[in-house]
Protein backbone atom coordinates (compact mmCIF):
# COMPACT_ATOMS: atom_id res chain seq x y z
CA UNK A 1 0.00 0.00 0.00
CA UNK A 2 1.26 3.40 -0.95
CA UNK A 3 1.71 6.12 1.66
CA UNK A 4 1.14 4.36 4.93
CA UNK A 5 -1.22 6.91 6.46
CA UNK A 6 -3.80 4.26 7.41
CA UNK A 7 -1.43 2.61 9.86
CA UNK A 8 -3.50 3.39 12.97
CA UNK A 9 -6.63 2.12 11.25
CA UNK A 10 -4.90 -1.09 10.29
CA UNK A 11 -3.35 -1.73 13.70
CA UNK A 12 -6.65 -1.09 15.49
CA UNK A 13 -8.58 -3.23 13.02
CA UNK A 14 -6.11 -6.07 13.35
CA UNK A 15 -6.68 -6.08 17.10
CA UNK A 16 -10.43 -5.63 16.88
CA UNK A 17 -11.41 -8.09 14.15
CA UNK A 18 -10.78 -11.24 16.24
CA UNK A 19 -12.72 -9.69 19.10
CA UNK A 20 -15.62 -8.87 16.78
CA UNK A 21 -15.60 -12.45 15.49
CA UNK A 22 -15.53 -13.77 19.04
CA UNK A 23 -18.43 -11.49 19.93
CA UNK A 24 -20.34 -12.82 16.93
CA UNK A 25 -19.95 -16.39 18.19
CA UNK A 26 -20.91 -15.27 21.70
CA UNK A 27 -24.08 -13.66 20.36
CA UNK A 28 -24.84 -16.85 18.49
CA UNK A 29 -24.28 -19.39 21.23
CA UNK A 30 -25.69 -17.20 23.98
CA UNK A 31 -28.87 -16.49 22.01
CA UNK A 32 -30.77 -18.83 24.30
CA UNK A 33 -30.22 -16.55 27.26
CA UNK A 34 -29.73 -13.05 25.92
CA UNK A 35 -30.77 -10.96 22.94
CA UNK A 36 -29.29 -12.17 19.72
CA UNK A 37 -29.18 -15.34 17.72
CA UNK A 38 -28.27 -16.58 14.30
CA UNK A 39 -29.31 -13.50 12.35
CA UNK A 40 -27.35 -11.01 14.39
CA UNK A 41 -24.37 -13.33 14.78
CA UNK A 42 -24.30 -13.98 11.06
CA UNK A 43 -24.31 -10.28 10.34
CA UNK A 44 -21.54 -9.63 12.87
CA UNK A 45 -19.35 -12.35 11.36
CA UNK A 46 -20.02 -10.94 7.90
CA UNK A 47 -19.06 -7.48 9.16
CA UNK A 48 -15.72 -8.95 10.28
CA UNK A 49 -14.93 -10.05 6.74
CA UNK A 50 -16.20 -6.79 5.26
CA UNK A 51 -14.20 -4.68 7.73
CA UNK A 52 -11.08 -6.64 6.87
CA UNK A 53 -11.65 -6.11 3.17
CA UNK A 54 -12.35 -2.39 3.60
CA UNK A 55 -9.07 -1.90 5.42
CA UNK A 56 -6.70 -4.44 3.90
CA UNK A 57 -8.15 -4.57 0.38
CA UNK A 58 -10.63 -6.89 -1.23
CA UNK A 59 -8.22 -9.13 -3.15
CA UNK A 60 -6.41 -10.42 -0.02
CA UNK A 61 -9.78 -11.05 1.64
CA UNK A 62 -10.95 -12.99 -1.40
CA UNK A 63 -7.82 -15.13 -1.20
CA UNK A 64 -8.49 -15.91 2.48
CA UNK A 65 -12.26 -16.40 2.25
CA UNK A 66 -13.12 -17.17 -1.35
CA UNK A 67 -16.41 -16.04 -2.92
CA UNK A 68 -17.17 -19.65 -3.75
CA UNK A 69 -16.81 -20.62 -0.10
CA UNK A 70 -19.22 -17.88 0.96
CA UNK A 71 -21.78 -18.96 -1.63
CA UNK A 72 -21.38 -22.54 -0.42
CA UNK A 73 -21.88 -21.49 3.21
CA UNK A 74 -24.98 -19.48 2.29
CA UNK A 75 -26.58 -22.43 0.52
CA UNK A 76 -25.48 -24.88 3.20
CA UNK A 77 -27.19 -22.82 5.91
CA UNK A 78 -30.50 -22.95 4.11
CA UNK A 79 -30.09 -26.70 3.54
CA UNK A 80 -29.35 -27.23 7.27
CA UNK A 81 -32.53 -25.39 8.20
CA UNK A 82 -34.67 -27.32 5.74
CA UNK A 83 -32.86 -30.50 6.78
CA UNK A 84 -34.15 -30.15 10.34
CA UNK A 85 -37.63 -29.90 8.89
CA UNK A 86 -37.16 -33.12 6.94
CA UNK A 87 -35.51 -34.79 9.93
CA UNK A 88 -38.70 -34.14 11.89
CA UNK A 89 -40.72 -35.49 8.96
CA UNK A 90 -38.59 -38.63 8.85
CA UNK A 91 -39.17 -39.22 12.55
CA UNK A 92 -42.90 -39.15 12.01
CA UNK A 93 -43.66 -35.58 13.05
CA UNK A 94 -44.70 -32.53 11.11
CA UNK A 95 -42.26 -30.33 9.18
CA UNK A 96 -40.06 -28.49 11.74
CA UNK A 97 -41.82 -30.15 14.69
CA UNK A 98 -38.82 -30.29 17.03
CA UNK A 99 -40.62 -32.42 19.62
CA UNK A 100 -40.60 -35.26 17.11
CA UNK A 101 -36.84 -35.19 16.50
CA UNK A 102 -35.98 -37.80 19.14
CA UNK A 103 -39.50 -39.21 19.57
CA UNK A 104 -39.48 -38.01 23.17
CA UNK A 105 -42.19 -38.46 25.77
CA UNK A 106 -44.20 -35.28 26.38
CA UNK A 107 -42.20 -33.05 28.73
CA UNK A 108 -38.80 -33.80 27.19
CA UNK A 109 -36.99 -30.77 25.82
CA UNK A 110 -33.96 -32.26 24.06
CA UNK A 111 -35.72 -32.14 20.71
CA UNK A 112 -36.65 -28.48 21.11
CA UNK A 113 -33.13 -27.54 22.22
CA UNK A 114 -31.41 -29.49 19.45
CA UNK A 115 -33.81 -28.21 16.85
CA UNK A 116 -33.35 -24.59 17.85
CA UNK A 117 -29.55 -24.88 18.02
CA UNK A 118 -29.30 -26.58 14.63
CA UNK A 119 -31.63 -24.19 12.83
CA UNK A 120 -29.79 -21.26 14.40
CA UNK A 121 -26.56 -22.63 12.93
CA UNK A 122 -28.38 -22.79 9.61
CA UNK A 123 -29.47 -19.17 10.00
CA UNK A 124 -25.92 -18.14 10.95
CA UNK A 125 -24.41 -19.80 7.87
CA UNK A 126 -27.07 -18.53 5.49
CA UNK A 127 -26.95 -14.94 6.72
CA UNK A 128 -23.16 -14.71 6.93
CA UNK A 129 -22.74 -16.34 3.53
CA UNK A 130 -25.38 -14.24 1.80
CA UNK A 131 -24.13 -10.95 3.30
CA UNK A 132 -20.50 -11.49 2.32
CA UNK A 133 -21.61 -12.73 -1.11
CA UNK A 134 -23.58 -9.52 -1.67
CA UNK A 135 -20.65 -7.42 -0.50
CA UNK A 136 -18.19 -9.28 -2.73
CA UNK A 137 -20.53 -8.87 -5.68
CA UNK A 138 -20.73 -5.11 -5.21
CA UNK A 139 -17.17 -4.45 -4.11
CA UNK A 140 -15.67 -6.83 -6.66
CA UNK A 141 -16.82 -4.66 -9.56
CA UNK A 142 -14.08 -2.07 -9.01
CA UNK A 143 -10.54 -3.32 -8.87
CA UNK A 144 -9.16 -1.03 -6.19
CA UNK A 145 -10.68 1.95 -4.40
CA UNK A 146 -8.27 4.84 -4.62
CA UNK A 147 -7.86 7.15 -1.64
CA UNK A 148 -9.01 10.23 -3.50
CA UNK A 149 -12.27 8.47 -4.42
CA UNK A 150 -13.48 8.59 -0.83
Amino acid at each position, binding site marked *: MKGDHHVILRVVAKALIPIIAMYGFYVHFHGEYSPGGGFQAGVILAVCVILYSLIFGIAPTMRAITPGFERFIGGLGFIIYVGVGFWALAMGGNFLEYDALFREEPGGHAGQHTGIIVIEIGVLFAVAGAMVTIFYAF*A*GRVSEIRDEDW
Partner: protein
Amino acid sequence: MTGFEGATLAIDLLNITLLTILFVVAIAIARLRSLFAIVMLSGIYSLVSATWFVALDAVDVAFTEAAVGAGISTALFLGAMVLTSRTAKPEKGATKIVPLLVVIATGAVLIYATIDLPGFGDPNSPANTGVGVEFLERTYPEIAIPNIVTAVLASYRGFDTLGEVGVVFMAGLAVSLLLGFGERSLGATVRREDRINAIKDDEEES
Protein backbone atom coordinates in the same frame (compact mmCIF):
# COMPACT_ATOMS: atom_id res chain seq x y z
CA MET B 1 -39.83 0.80 32.52
CA THR B 2 -41.19 1.12 36.00
CA GLY B 3 -39.43 2.64 38.95
CA PHE B 4 -39.51 5.65 41.10
CA GLU B 5 -41.33 8.83 40.21
CA GLY B 6 -38.47 10.88 38.82
CA ALA B 7 -37.66 8.15 36.33
CA THR B 8 -40.48 9.10 33.97
CA LEU B 9 -39.07 12.59 33.50
CA ALA B 10 -35.60 11.21 32.78
CA ILE B 11 -37.03 8.73 30.27
CA ASP B 12 -39.07 11.46 28.59
CA LEU B 13 -35.98 13.64 28.29
CA LEU B 14 -34.02 10.71 26.86
CA ASN B 15 -36.74 9.98 24.31
CA ILE B 16 -37.00 13.63 23.28
CA THR B 17 -33.23 13.93 22.92
CA LEU B 18 -32.92 10.78 20.81
CA LEU B 19 -35.90 11.68 18.61
CA THR B 20 -34.49 15.18 18.10
CA ILE B 21 -31.18 13.70 16.98
CA LEU B 22 -33.06 11.40 14.61
CA PHE B 23 -34.99 14.36 13.21
CA VAL B 24 -31.88 16.44 12.69
CA VAL B 25 -30.04 13.57 11.02
CA ALA B 26 -33.03 12.89 8.75
CA ILE B 27 -33.19 16.53 7.67
CA ALA B 28 -29.45 16.52 7.04
CA ILE B 29 -29.76 13.35 4.91
CA ALA B 30 -32.56 14.94 2.87
CA ARG B 31 -30.59 18.12 2.23
CA LEU B 32 -27.11 16.73 1.56
CA ARG B 33 -25.88 15.96 -1.94
CA SER B 34 -22.65 14.10 -1.12
CA LEU B 35 -23.51 10.39 -1.19
CA PHE B 36 -20.63 9.47 1.10
CA ALA B 37 -21.93 11.81 3.82
CA ILE B 38 -25.46 10.48 3.30
CA VAL B 39 -24.29 6.87 3.74
CA MET B 40 -22.42 7.76 6.91
CA LEU B 41 -25.39 9.72 8.27
CA SER B 42 -27.78 6.87 7.58
CA GLY B 43 -25.45 4.64 9.60
CA ILE B 44 -25.64 7.17 12.41
CA TYR B 45 -29.42 7.26 12.01
CA SER B 46 -29.56 3.47 12.47
CA LEU B 47 -27.31 3.60 15.51
CA VAL B 48 -29.36 6.34 17.19
CA SER B 49 -32.61 4.51 16.48
CA ALA B 50 -31.04 1.36 17.93
CA THR B 51 -30.28 3.34 21.08
CA TRP B 52 -33.85 4.52 21.13
CA PHE B 53 -35.13 0.93 20.79
CA VAL B 54 -33.07 0.04 23.87
CA ALA B 55 -34.82 2.88 25.71
CA LEU B 56 -38.13 1.32 24.63
CA ASP B 57 -37.03 -2.09 26.02
CA ALA B 58 -36.95 -3.69 22.55
CA VAL B 59 -33.43 -5.07 22.96
CA ASP B 60 -33.62 -7.68 20.21
CA VAL B 61 -34.86 -5.17 17.67
CA ALA B 62 -32.16 -2.74 18.77
CA PHE B 63 -29.51 -5.40 18.33
CA THR B 64 -30.69 -6.23 14.85
CA GLU B 65 -30.92 -2.57 13.90
CA ALA B 66 -27.38 -1.94 15.12
CA ALA B 67 -25.95 -4.98 13.33
CA VAL B 68 -27.92 -4.75 10.08
CA GLY B 69 -28.77 -1.07 9.79
CA ALA B 70 -25.55 0.43 11.04
CA GLY B 71 -23.19 -2.39 10.09
CA ILE B 72 -24.09 -4.24 6.91
CA SER B 73 -26.23 -1.60 5.18
CA THR B 74 -23.55 1.05 5.56
CA ALA B 75 -20.92 -1.24 4.08
CA LEU B 76 -23.21 -2.29 1.23
CA PHE B 77 -24.21 1.30 0.51
CA LEU B 78 -20.52 2.22 0.37
CA GLY B 79 -19.92 -0.64 -2.04
CA ALA B 80 -22.85 0.44 -4.20
CA MET B 81 -21.80 4.09 -4.02
CA VAL B 82 -18.36 3.32 -5.37
CA LEU B 83 -20.05 1.87 -8.47
CA THR B 84 -21.97 5.08 -9.17
CA SER B 85 -21.18 8.77 -8.84
CA ARG B 86 -20.24 10.48 -5.59
CA THR B 87 -22.89 13.20 -5.59
CA ALA B 88 -26.62 13.23 -6.19
CA LYS B 89 -28.12 15.58 -8.75
CA PRO B 90 -30.38 18.23 -7.19
CA GLU B 91 -34.07 17.83 -8.01
CA LYS B 92 -35.94 20.59 -9.78
CA GLY B 93 -39.49 21.96 -9.72
CA ALA B 94 -42.38 19.52 -9.15
CA THR B 95 -40.16 16.56 -8.35
CA LYS B 96 -38.94 18.54 -5.36
CA ILE B 97 -42.34 19.31 -3.84
CA VAL B 98 -44.20 16.01 -4.48
CA PRO B 99 -42.09 13.85 -2.12
CA LEU B 100 -42.52 16.47 0.59
CA LEU B 101 -46.30 16.33 0.22
CA VAL B 102 -46.25 12.51 0.28
CA VAL B 103 -44.14 12.53 3.45
CA ILE B 104 -46.39 15.08 5.16
CA ALA B 105 -49.54 13.13 4.22
CA THR B 106 -48.06 9.81 5.41
CA GLY B 107 -46.87 11.42 8.62
CA ALA B 108 -50.32 12.89 9.27
CA VAL B 109 -51.95 9.49 8.73
CA LEU B 110 -49.46 7.81 11.08
CA ILE B 111 -49.95 10.42 13.78
CA TYR B 112 -53.72 10.02 13.40
CA ALA B 113 -53.24 6.25 13.82
CA THR B 114 -51.26 6.67 17.04
CA ILE B 115 -54.30 8.21 18.77
CA ASP B 116 -55.87 4.75 18.94
CA LEU B 117 -52.72 3.01 20.17
CA PRO B 118 -52.52 1.91 23.81
CA GLY B 119 -50.09 3.77 26.05
CA PHE B 120 -46.47 2.61 26.28
CA GLY B 121 -46.21 -0.34 28.69
CA ASP B 122 -49.97 -0.38 29.28
CA PRO B 123 -50.65 -3.70 31.06
CA ASN B 124 -54.18 -3.80 29.66
CA SER B 125 -53.17 -3.36 26.04
CA PRO B 126 -54.03 -6.21 23.64
CA ALA B 127 -50.35 -7.08 23.19
CA ASN B 128 -49.90 -7.56 26.93
CA THR B 129 -53.13 -9.43 27.66
CA GLY B 130 -53.63 -11.80 24.73
CA VAL B 131 -51.02 -13.81 22.97
CA GLY B 132 -48.08 -12.18 24.76
CA VAL B 133 -49.08 -13.58 28.14
CA GLU B 134 -49.78 -16.91 26.49
CA PHE B 135 -46.19 -17.07 25.19
CA LEU B 136 -44.77 -15.96 28.55
CA GLU B 137 -46.65 -18.71 30.33
CA ARG B 138 -46.14 -21.51 27.84
CA THR B 139 -42.56 -21.02 26.68
CA TYR B 140 -40.75 -22.33 29.73
CA PRO B 141 -42.79 -25.52 30.25
CA GLU B 142 -42.86 -26.30 26.55
CA ILE B 143 -39.43 -25.28 25.29
CA ALA B 144 -37.41 -24.63 28.45
CA ILE B 145 -35.14 -21.89 27.16
CA PRO B 146 -35.07 -18.56 28.99
CA ASN B 147 -35.09 -16.17 26.03
CA ILE B 148 -38.68 -16.09 24.86
CA VAL B 149 -37.81 -14.12 21.73
CA THR B 150 -35.53 -16.94 20.56
CA ALA B 151 -38.16 -19.55 21.42
CA VAL B 152 -40.85 -17.73 19.46
CA LEU B 153 -38.52 -17.01 16.56
CA ALA B 154 -37.02 -20.46 16.20
CA SER B 155 -39.72 -22.78 17.42
CA TYR B 156 -43.23 -21.37 17.48
CA ARG B 157 -42.63 -19.42 14.30
CA GLY B 158 -40.10 -21.74 12.72
CA PHE B 159 -41.83 -21.59 9.33
CA ASP B 160 -41.68 -17.82 9.37
CA THR B 161 -37.96 -17.85 10.13
CA LEU B 162 -37.42 -20.46 7.42
CA GLY B 163 -39.04 -18.04 5.00
CA GLU B 164 -36.78 -15.23 6.19
CA VAL B 165 -33.67 -17.34 5.76
CA GLY B 166 -34.93 -18.23 2.30
CA VAL B 167 -35.31 -14.55 1.48
CA VAL B 168 -31.79 -13.76 2.69
CA PHE B 169 -30.37 -16.69 0.75
CA MET B 170 -32.24 -15.68 -2.39
CA ALA B 171 -31.06 -12.09 -2.04
CA GLY B 172 -27.47 -13.33 -1.95
CA LEU B 173 -28.15 -15.66 -4.87
CA ALA B 174 -29.79 -12.96 -6.96
CA VAL B 175 -27.02 -10.42 -6.39
CA SER B 176 -24.28 -12.93 -7.10
CA LEU B 177 -26.06 -14.08 -10.27
CA LEU B 178 -26.36 -10.49 -11.44
CA LEU B 179 -22.95 -9.17 -10.38
CA GLY B 180 -20.81 -11.78 -8.71
CA PHE B 181 -19.83 -14.35 -11.32
CA GLY B 182 -18.12 -14.07 -14.64
CA GLU B 183 -14.68 -13.36 -15.99
CA ARG B 184 -14.72 -9.68 -15.08
CA SER B 185 -15.61 -10.16 -11.40
CA LEU B 186 -12.79 -9.67 -8.93
CA GLY B 187 -13.16 -13.21 -7.61
CA ALA B 188 -12.35 -14.64 -11.04
CA THR B 189 -9.44 -12.19 -11.46
CA VAL B 190 -7.94 -13.21 -8.11
CA ARG B 191 -8.28 -16.90 -9.01
CA ARG B 192 -6.69 -16.32 -12.40
CA GLU B 193 -3.75 -14.41 -10.92
CA ASP B 194 -3.19 -17.12 -8.35
CA ARG B 195 -3.19 -19.77 -11.05
CA ILE B 196 -0.69 -17.82 -13.18
CA ASN B 197 1.57 -17.32 -10.16
CA ALA B 198 1.36 -21.02 -9.31
CA ILE B 199 2.38 -21.94 -12.87
CA LYS B 200 5.28 -19.47 -12.70
CA ASP B 201 6.44 -20.98 -9.41
CA ASP B 202 6.31 -24.46 -10.89
CA GLU B 203 8.36 -23.36 -13.88
CA GLU B 204 10.97 -21.75 -11.66
CA GLU B 205 11.28 -24.90 -9.60
CA SER B 206 11.62 -27.24 -12.59
